[in-house]
Each structure stands twice: as structure tokens, then as C-alpha cells.
């Protein structure tokens, strides 16, 4: 096992609902033991192409995101990047769940009890 480099496109402190509309990203290095360090990146403007470039330039292993268009999803997969999409929740909550080894594509991390989000 080696350190995994994870990128999460951001909207405020949440996983960005849309990959292509994120102008900010959180990059993390997750150790095999589950610990992680994070770093923020700002993009000049929201761009799916820009994010893909960043993913390749930073040698990212895993992208955790919300909605992503099919062509970008397949492009990243083709570049051997794991994509966990349709994730909704706070970025740090997603990262913690990933480092614990239990984050899956499609996970909704907001509290849904009584119809209220956490």
C-alpha cells in the first residue's frame, strides 16, 4: 500500500455538486494508515478541462466528485484515475470516509433524518 493522492472539486466546504463548475479543489495525500494532509488549489475559472489537467499534473489517484459528465468520467478512467462520483456532502466528511476505506460512488453524506441536512 502506498500514499494515495486524492482530489475533491469544491463548492465552499462541500464536494462541488458539479465537476465542471468548480473553481477550487482540495488535494489530499491519504496514508495507508488512514491519516491525511490537505492542500487547496484555486483554478483561474471553473473548467472541467482545467480540473482534468490538474488531476494529471498532480498525479492524482482518486477523484471524489458530485456530478460529472460522461466524457470527463471516461477520460479520467482511461488515464487510470479512480473516480468516485455522485458523492454529496462536506468535503472533509468525504475524505474521512475515504481514508477509512468506506466511501463509495453515490454516497450521500448529508444527514437525511426528518428531511434536514446536516
Amino acid at each position: 500500500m502506498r500514499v494515495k493522492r486524492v482530489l475533491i472539486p469544491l463548492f465552499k466546504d462541500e464536494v462541488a455538486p458539479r465537476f465542471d463548475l468548480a473553481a477550487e479543489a482540495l488535494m489530499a495525500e491519504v496514508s495507508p494508515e488512514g491519516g491525511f494532509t490537505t492542500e487547496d488549489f484555486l483554478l483561474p475559472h471553473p473548467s472541467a478541462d482545467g480540473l482534468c489537467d490538474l488531476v494529471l499534473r498532480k498525479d492524482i489517484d482518486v477523484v471524489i466528485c458530485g456530478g460529472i459528465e460522461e466524457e470527463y468520467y471516461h477520460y479520467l478512467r482511461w488515464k487510470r484515475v479512480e473516480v468516485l462520483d455522485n458523492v454529496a456532502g462536506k468535503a472533509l466528511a468525504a475524505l474521512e470516509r475515504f481514508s477509512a476505506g468506506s466511501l463509495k460512488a453515490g454516497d450521500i453524506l448529508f444527514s437525511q433524518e426528518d428531511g434536514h441536512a446536516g
Partner: protein
Amino acid sequence: MTLVSPSLLASLDFPAILDGLPLGVAVLDREGRVVTVNTALERMTGFSREAARGVPCRHVLRSGICQGKCPASGPVDTEIINRHRRKIPVRISAVPVLDPLGQELFRLDIVEDLSALRELERRLEEPGGIGKLVGKSPAMERIMRLIPAMAQAGAPVMVIGETGTGKDAVAEAIHKLSPRAREPFVRVNCGPMQAEALEAELFGRRQQSGEIAPGAFQRAGTGTAYLSDVGELPEELQVRLVRFLDEEAILPAGGQTPIRSQAKVIASSPSSPESLVRSGRMRQDLAYRLGALRLDLPPLRERPEDIEFLLAHFMEVFAAKFRKKVLGFTPRARRLLLAHDYPGNVRELRNIVEFAVMICPKPSIPPACLPAHLLEQLAAPGEKE
């Protein structure tokens, strides 16, 4: 005027009402979290109402305005990315629901799928035509002006033209430009088929179990039933078609109870209704009903000015399809192609260009790359390279 009492309103099954709507609807609380979504929005976004409940709507709708000017004051055209990673163009309208004191109780986000509209716009913007119809000649421009008008009419339309002139493409274009565009387009070829089978194909059949196997008119619903080669329809079925056009009701084969159908009828034939009546192949009453709105598609030999345009158009289409850098025809090949009279009309020209682009290894297509039968027909000694 009878007023609906508040208690009656409160007793209404609100979710069921929303599910009956053809538009996507999200019910949001004051913080913008999803209370529920209707069936249409479940289908559009890929989120079930259980999965969406309590989630901030920006993570369910995922529209172009969710990370910006939300909620918009009026309808906004944007796009969403659904759970299946598909980008869908939509129009979103936010409707606040207020209590008697003017306080916002909740908000409805109404989401209309614009995919069909955008597709239509894209097709209309294609050079020189509507849908698969292509042409620059005055005759074709007139046809393309008539099609939108005929699409708006509920009356039957008859499309007349030789083989390969584009009758099917015209029928599809009329359907796609009509208010029925989102409903089914059901095509039935009335050509050689046993009358009983054709009857079931058109009007449906009552099965032994008592169920009705739907025919074209039931399957079309409020869409379009397109009857190609209508002159081949047996006389007894012509009588039933006349009855349908008059009464908007059909009787399935073996059935006793008529079924209502509001399908628009488009019929096509290589011959005009008058000549079909003269030759005894069409009843006069059906000819009158079908021939009220008619489009006569000119054969390619009567609009030679379209040939060059069509050659260039299809060459571009097939060069892209086969990923070839074909730039044009050699002067000799072009002369041969312009001299041909195209008895198979646009379909024949299209097939010739497809063949030539497919087999040609050069940027300019020489006569040697044209189909052999064409070269034989033209029999121009010294023209072959």
C-alpha cells in the same frame, strides 16, 4: 362561483398530483433542502425521492445556476448533470408557495427537459435543410417553407414523390416540427402484406385472452401514424381509414368497442391521389380526405441545381463518417455525376457518394471510384481513369 374549502385543499394528495405532472418538480424547504421530488424529476435526475430527501437541492438538481444565482427570479435556461452522467438542457422556474401572511412556506422548482427542443434547433440550424431534408433549389426551399405550416395543422397530410425523393424524411420532419413532437411517430408500410395482418398492424387486434394488441393508431396515441405506400391499402381498410379520419375512433380486429385515437395521419405514395383514384387503387372519399394538405416532392432530375449541392453535402457527411480526408471529385467524375439523371433520386445520389468516399484512397474522387453500374450506364468511352 363555488369556492374550494381549505379543508378540502388540505386533504388533497399533493404528491400524487405532482406525480401526474409531465414536468419535473422539486419541493424545497426554506433552506433549499429537498422535501420531495416528483416522478418526472426522479427520472430526469436519477435521484429517487428517498435519496433526495433532506439533501440541499444543489446536490440533486446540479444545474448551471446552483453554484451561482439560485433561486433565479424568473425562468432560467441552463443544464443539469444527472446521476447517469448525462448533461440535460433544462428550463428551471422557481415558484414560492406563501402562507396567508406572505411568509414563504416552501418553494417549488419546476424543471422542464429541453432536450427535444434543443435537438430540433440543432437540426434546423443544419445547412440547407430541415432534419434529413437537404436542398437549395427553389422547389425544395418551397417544400421546406410549407413543412412547418403543415406541421401545425391537425389535418392529414399526403406526401407524394418518386422513390428516393425523401417522403419518409418529410413525414418525420412534419412530426418533429408539430406540437406532437414528443409523442410517438409510428410508421406502417402499407405495401404487400396480407389484409388481416395489415388490419391488425393498423387498428390492433382483440386477442383470445380479451386483451387488445395495439395497432399503429393506439401506439401513436396523440402522436403521428405514418402510412407509407398508402395506395397499396386494400379497399376494406381504406373504408376503415376514412371512418377513423371522420370519427377519430378505431375498431380493433375482432373487437366490438371502438377506441378513440387522436393520432395525426401522414400518408405517402409515389402517385398522386388523383392518379390512384383513376387507376382504381384509392377510393375517392379517402383521396379527398388525404389530399387536402399535400406536398409534391420533385424528382432530382427536375431540380438539377440541387445535384452539385447534394454531392458536396453527402461527401462531407461520409468523409466525416469514414474519417477520410476527401476534398472533392475530379473534374471528370464531377461531369459524369452531373450528367446522370438519378432515377433513384436523392437516395441513389447518396448511395453513390457513400460508395465513392468509402473506397477512394485519394483526396479527389476519380471516376474509377464511382460504382461500376453508374459508369456502365453513362458508357462514356475515354472517361474512365
